[in-house]
Structure formats: structure tokens, C-alpha cells
């Protein structure tokens, strides 16, 4: 029950924020959500909640670390956002002299999507089913796109388009990887391993190795696009420089983690299936390439 709450509360509060007209109420909702989320996460430190929703949601050791980071950073970001919005409103008034209504509408979308992003990220971390994991990562892309487009100018639009098209292709490849994983669960005996993490790790020995390798490659490239691994990173510098600073922080510190978590989950299965060497080599290869590209681009800046 408590596991559903930590996903549903930010989701509902995000939806409410989209339709609420009073500015102060919206801010109170944001702070309330951040405090509740952090409180629940803190509660998990002492009592690990049981898996709920027929095992679809659970907090495992790996997810627990990511959940703590996400919750703590969102808490800090919520307070910073209030200050940021107040300042950007002041600047907006000085430059554009927009009417009050024009100023308010983007703010509702911004605050609403911020909380929806928290909800989808929490769902990504808690989901124990690889299909649900994909849906959650896809949802994070959709709700974070309006956040990057907050400033509504040419440059932020370009960044948003790049983010959407490149991450969409990446996540589509992630879906292909997930389907490959599904195909890998067919075995000659006619039994199928369910797509839950626990069953996949326990029954990894029975998975078809060739399809599992294919699944790992597509998921590494697909979620790696969202994580910003080297050859697929091109959306990242633009989105980060054009998004409001608080979003830039949340993208780097929490959203990219969620994509990384998706890759780590498949790695867990590969380790259990005895093809750890294969996945580790790919990790090292992409890692070195990422460092190399970053190093080269420092000189180009």
C-alpha cells in the first residue's frame, strides 16, 4: 500500500497542479509533495515495505540507493524552484511586460510536470517488471520535455526537439531489447520465465543466450541514449544548457540515473545467466569512449 502511495501521491499532486489557479496553493502542493516523498523514503530506511501490486512494485537494494538520491535531490530542488520562479518572473516583467495571466500558465505546466517527473522516476525505480520499467522510462521522457521547453524561445525549442527525437529513437530501441528479452524466455521445454526481475535472475540459466545478448545490446544502446553514453549523447549538452538550472540538475542527478538503473537491471540478468564477461566488456567500451569524447570536446568549447 505504502509503495503505491509514493508513486500515486506525486502523480495526483502533479495533475492537480496543472489545473489549480492560485499561485501560492501550487507552491504549497509542490513543497508538500517533496516533504511526503522524502518522508516515505526515510521511512523505508527503517522498515523495508513488502512487494505490492502482485510483485510489480518493490524496493530492492539497488532501487533503494537510487530512490534515496532522487528523493533527497527533489526535496532540495523544490525549494530552489520557488526562488527560481520568483526571480525569472521578475526578469520576465522587466523585459517583456507580459500580463499576469500569460506569466502564470507556463508556471502551472512547469510545476505540474515537475511532480509528474518525480512520479514517473519513482515508478521506474520501483518497477520489478521489465515491461513496466520501459513504460516508466518512456513516461519520464514525455513529462520532462515541457520542462526543457520552459523558456519558449528558439534555442530551447531546438533543444527540446533534439531531446524528443533522439531519446524517442533510443527508447524505441530499448523496447526492441525488452521484446528480445521476452523472446529469450521461450525455451525448448515449453516453459516460460515471467518477465519479473526476481524470476529472471533466478531462472536466468534457462534463458536463450543469443537473444539475451541481443536484448542487452539493444537495451544498453537504447537506455544508454537517455543516460548520455558517448555516441548517443548529442541531445544532452543542448538540453542541459537550455533547460532551467533546476531541471538541468534533476536531469543529470536523477533522470539519467533512472536510465542507468534500467541498464543495470539487464546486467543483473546477464550476470546470473553467466554472460557477465560479455556485458562487462561492452560497459568498459562505452565508458572509455564516453570519457574520450568528453575529453576531446573540452578543447572544442
Amino acid at each position: 500500500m505504502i509503495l503505491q502511495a509514493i508513486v500515486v501521491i506525486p502523480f495526483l499532486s502533479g495533475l492537480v497542479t496543472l489545473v489549480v489557479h492560485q499561485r501560492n496553493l501550487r507552491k504549497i502542493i509542490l513543497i508538500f509533495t517533496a516533504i511526503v516523498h522524502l518522508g516515505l523514503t526515510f521511512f523505508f530506511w527503517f522498515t523495508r515495505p513488502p512487494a505490492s501490486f502482485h510483485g510489480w512494485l518493490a524496493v530492492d537494494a539497488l532501487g533503494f540507493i537510487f530512490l534515496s538520491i532522487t528523493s533527497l535531490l527533489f526535496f532540495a530542488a523544490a525549494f530552489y524552484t520557488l526562488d527560481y520562479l520568483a526571480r525569472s518572473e521578475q526578469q520576465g516583467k522587466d523585459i517583456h511586460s507580459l500580463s499576469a495571466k500569460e506569466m502564470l500558465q507556463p508556471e502551472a505546466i512547469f510545476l505540474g510536470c515537475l511532480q509528474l517527473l518525480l512520479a514517473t522516476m519513482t515508478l521506474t525505480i520501483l518497477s520489478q517488471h521489465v515491461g513496466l520499467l520501459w513504460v516508466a522510462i518512456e513516461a519520464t521522457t514525455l513529462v520532462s520535455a515541457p520542462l526543457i521547453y520552459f523558456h519558449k524561445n528558439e534555442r530551447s525549442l531546438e533543444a527540446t526537439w533534439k531531446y524528443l527525437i533522439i531519446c524517442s529513437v533510443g527508447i524505441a530501441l530499448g523496447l526492441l531489447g525488452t521484446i528480445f528479452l521476452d523472446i529469450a524466455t521461450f525455451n525448448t521445454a515449453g516453459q516460460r520465465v515471467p518477465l519479473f526481475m526476481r524470476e529472471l535472475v533466478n531462472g536466468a540459466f534457462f534463458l536463450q543466450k543469443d537473444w539475451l545478448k541481443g536484448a542487452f545490446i539493444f537495451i544498453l544502446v537504447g537506455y544508454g541514449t537517455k543516460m548520455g553514453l558517448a555516441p548517443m549523447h548529442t541531445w544532452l549538452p543542448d538540453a542541459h544548457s537550455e533547460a532551467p538550472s533546476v531541471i538541468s540538475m534533476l536531469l543529470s542527478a536523477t533522470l539519467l540515473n533512472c536510465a542507468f538503473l534500467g541498464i543495470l537491471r539487464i546486467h543483473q540478468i546477464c550476470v546470473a545467466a553467466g554472460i557477465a564477461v560479455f556485458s562487462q566488456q561492452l560497459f568498459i567500451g562505452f565508458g572509455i569512449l564516453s570519457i574520450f569524447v568528453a575529453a576531446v570536446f573540452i578543447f572544442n568549447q
Partner: protein
Amino acid sequence: MSYWADVIFVLIVVLNLGLLSSSRLGNCIRLVAIEGALLGLLPLLLQGGQPEGRTFVFALGSILVKGIILPLMLNWAVREANIFREVEPFIGYTVSMVIGVVLLIVSFWISARLVLPIEVSRLAVSTALFTILVGLFLIVSRKKAITQALSYLVMENGIFIFGTMAVALETSFMGIIIFHINRQFEHIDMDQLASLKDWHGTRHSEERT
């Protein structure tokens, strides 16, 4: 039943080749719509025996979304953006066609090595791979934002064959974004969206001269 599935797979290959060579946006959208509707029939044909009610709903839903709603939205975006002009690709149509044939050979070659553990048509894997590769190729070789969204849909169709579970959520979202891009840029040309390029090689050389 398997015979008709094979017919659909062959038709999809032909439609993909048509997409590679057609320049009119309206034509491209129509081809993608036909492809989406054909794909919607696949769940009915691939399932052996009497199809269940659930399969019917699924097939009807995908025909509705892929064959009717998304093409209508793309058509709407074309009208709003007012670009009926021919697309100007980075890679010409004749070359695209040749590359398409190469991609087809590659996907048949790969599919010979990937053995599906389930009993389906031998053409399924190669058609799916070919459709994904064509979609990816179109995304990188075409300039207009709307063609890129369309190519994304093609790629997703390929994944649909693999999984018959993809929901084209993103494309509807892109329709809205395209409209905004048009408002900001007057004409939809991704090539013009270059102010954030990492590499300013050409700009530097202009400054020097």
C-alpha cells in the same frame, strides 16, 4: 493463415521501398497509414486457430491508431505548417533506394542467424529488421521535422512486428511540437536548427575568410 501473413510481410517491404523513393509528404503519410493498417491485421493472422476476442480488440485498436489517428494528426501538422512541398533530403532518392536494397539484404542475412524459438513465418524477423533499419535511415537522411516524426513511426512499425505491443504515444506529442517549431521558424527545416551545434567548424572558417 500463414500464407496471408507472408503476403502482408511482402507488401510491407514494398511499402518501405516506396517510402524511400517518394518525395511528397502527403504520399509518404498515406504509405505509412497503409503500412500501419496492414500491421494491425498481423495479430489476427499470426495467432493459430480461432482468434480470441482480446486479439480482435488489439487488432482493431492498432489499425485505428496506426492506420487512421496518427496519419490524420500528421496530415493536420502538414496543413498547419503549410509544407506540401517536396522534401529535400540529405541523401537523394536514387541513392536512398540503393541503400534500401542493401538494408534488405542485410536484414535477411541477420535473420538467417537469429532463430526464433516460436513458430512463425520466416519472413517475420527479416521484415521487422528491414522496417526498423529503413526508419532509422529515414530519420538521419531527411531534413524536415515532420518527415523525422514519420520515420520514427516507420521504425516503430518494425518494432511492432517484433512485439505487437508498441504504442505510438510519442508521435502524437511530436505533432504538437512540430506546430510550435513552425510558429517559431516559419518553415520546418531541421537543418536550420543549428544554433546549438557543438561543432562550429563552418562558422569558424567563415570568420577567418
